[in-house]
């Protein structure tokens, strides 16, 4: 049985089904209980599992994320929600110096089956401290798997995989994909989702549209901007292949490089900051291996290196979108 589910319900359903299966799973975070998570990712869980397993926390990110490590070391499988990824700065040490490294530093004695889920993305005038993506920053530090679904089907399957993974997984959901009543989301993100649990392997990209002239590698909400651009370009006779990377660590290099080999052109579209992030990583991954097979210089459309501005006029100008993609693709061909 499948039905159309918005992403936030797909995520909470995945967590609920896993919690029923495994008593070791519990959730911590701010406003995840009665409120059901500010972005609905824990919708309905408190009613099902009670306050012991669905724990509302004080604003103490360092403490409850660090607590996830302690609980994991005792065989639990904690899920923590960091309300906005922008808040990671107050808890980063527990994430990158401890949770990410414990397995390695302990010579494999300790496993860290921790899921840290967090909201990303802008486009709704939430300004510089509530609109960032920052997954590139987490991809930089070793020991974390980086998962970023773009639709409700992937969201459920990847969440179940994340929970079952014995490693720490950072699970990023874009606010503008969740299908919330109060925040616009592309219709395409709300898709048919099977009722029963299923997994999607972490580390498999998905070709969401096949094409022959150019590869557009992208992730999260930018998948749709790329799709909309590709539809228009199709009318002009340009055939773009779109890859939804889905996970940044591990990165599905095979699919990426295979596609660029075929098309000879690479455009990376990323909502995270431009410098020292995902876009540079994808391009260098390709140029290091098949730099001499490219027909055009690889390009990237990412967030320029400015904080996220508040005003609609300004934010629209810097946010990567369909128009910018079309323009760049035409320049490349």
């Amino acid at each position, binding site marked *: 049985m499948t039905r159309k589910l918005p992403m936030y319900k797909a995520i909470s359903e995945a967590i609920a089904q896993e919690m029923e299966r495994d008593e070791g799973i519990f959730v911590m975070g701010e406003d995840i209980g009665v409120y059901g998570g500010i972005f609905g990712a824990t919708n309905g869980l408190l009613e099902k599992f009670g306050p012991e397993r669905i724990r509302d926390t004080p*604003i103490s990110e360092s403490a409850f994320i660090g607590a996830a490590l302690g609980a994991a070391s005792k065989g639990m499988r904690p899920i923590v929600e960091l309300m906005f990824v922008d808040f990671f700065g107050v808890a980063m040490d527990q994430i990158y110096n401890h949770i990410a490294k414990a397995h390695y530093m302990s010579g494999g004695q300790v496993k860290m089956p921790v899921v840290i889920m967090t909201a990303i993305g802008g486009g709704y005038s939430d*300004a510089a401290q509530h609109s960032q993506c920052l997954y590139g920053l987490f991809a930089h530090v070793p020991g974390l798997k980086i998962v970023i679904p773009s639709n409700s089907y992937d969201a459920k399957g990847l969440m179940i995989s994340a929970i079952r993974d014995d490693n720490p997984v950072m699970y990023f959901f874009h606010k503008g994909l969740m299908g919330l009543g109060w925040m616009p989301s592309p219709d395409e993100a709300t898709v048919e989702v099977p009722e029963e649990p299923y997994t999607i392997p972490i580390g498999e990209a998905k070709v969401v549209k096949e094409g022959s002239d150019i590869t557009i590698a992208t992730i999260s909400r930018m998948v749709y901007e790329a799709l909309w651009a590709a539809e228009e370009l199709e009318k002009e006779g340009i055939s773009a292949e779109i890859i939804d990377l889905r996970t940044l660590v591990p990165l599905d290099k095979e699919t990426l490089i295979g596609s660029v080999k075929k098309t000879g052109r690479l455009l990376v579209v990323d909502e995270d900051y431009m410098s020292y992030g995902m876009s540079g990583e994808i391009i260098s991954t390709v140029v290091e291996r098949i730099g001499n097979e490219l027909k055009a210089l690889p390009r990237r459309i990412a967030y*320029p290196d400015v904080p996220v501005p508040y005003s609609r006029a300004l934010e629209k100008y810097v946010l990567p979108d369909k128009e910018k993609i079309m323009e760049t693709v035409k320049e490349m061909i």
Partner: protein
Amino acid sequence: MPVEEISKEELLWMYETMVRIRVHEERVAELFAQGKIPGFVHLYVGEEAVAVGVMANLRKDDYITSTHRGHGHYISKGGDIKASMAELFGKKTGSGKGKGGSMHIADLDVGELGANGMVGGGIPHAVGAGLGIKLNGLDRVAVAFFGDGASNQQNFHEGINLAAIWKLPVVFVCENNQYQISLPYDKQQTIKSVAERGKAYGIPGVSVDGQDVLAVYEVAKEAIERARRGEGPTLIEAKTYRFRGHFEGDPQVYRSKEEIEWWKKNKDPIKLFEQKLLEKGIVTKEELNAIWDKVKKEIEEAVKFAEESPWPSKEEVLEDVFSTPTKGVLVWQW
């Protein structure tokens, strides 16, 4: 504090400023609902007495650091309302040229060092202002405003400890509005009052009714004078209540309508203050009405200014990241 001990001028300033905050916030709520103000706004309705009672004791050259619920602090510190309204609209004439928005409004000219989207983020900034004051031998004071939720966050602990060991002229004002978004106070911590935490830093901790502007005025006065005398920081907890949701659009499933109504009816800081002023014969109803009219006009002017202001030009998005011109590429555009 008995009203008799405060000058009429000062009492009227407090009343007018509370009204200004109230009218401003309710107007912002309307504009937000109309879609004229984007993003998230966190309004200060119900908490006016805290900002005003504290700010009545501050000078223009004193400093404050604020929170995501910062309009009340900004207004009472003397921030330019036209500039903040334009900022809320995202206009070029805004205090942040449209780059900051509600959570990042600042007016450095009046010592308002900024609202802050990060819970507890501004606490150490006030400590830094206090350090600057001390090392420059000034008699200014820095006040950090923050919520009950922030009192469980790292910066509360680190910031107050620093101010205490260095005896800095800083006053820490916890606006305990009893909810950390949806989490009630008694599920955040086990102690009755945040003020008890003063003991952990060897500094005075005082709890006060945040709906009573004169009570706030009194404890703030003592703390601020103490700070100016070089005797170090004080922690104040003002027990208050936000009459609206955490942000506009908050469904407020975590508290009952009755509870909200009770507070509005019995603990409205403006009504309570008004009653006292009238009872004591300090002002007439007409005088008060005139204040409301004046303030409403002023806010409408600010709205008009904001509406008529131009949008920032697109290219401005790349400006103001850095101040010192430098060689090399600072802001990438590929």
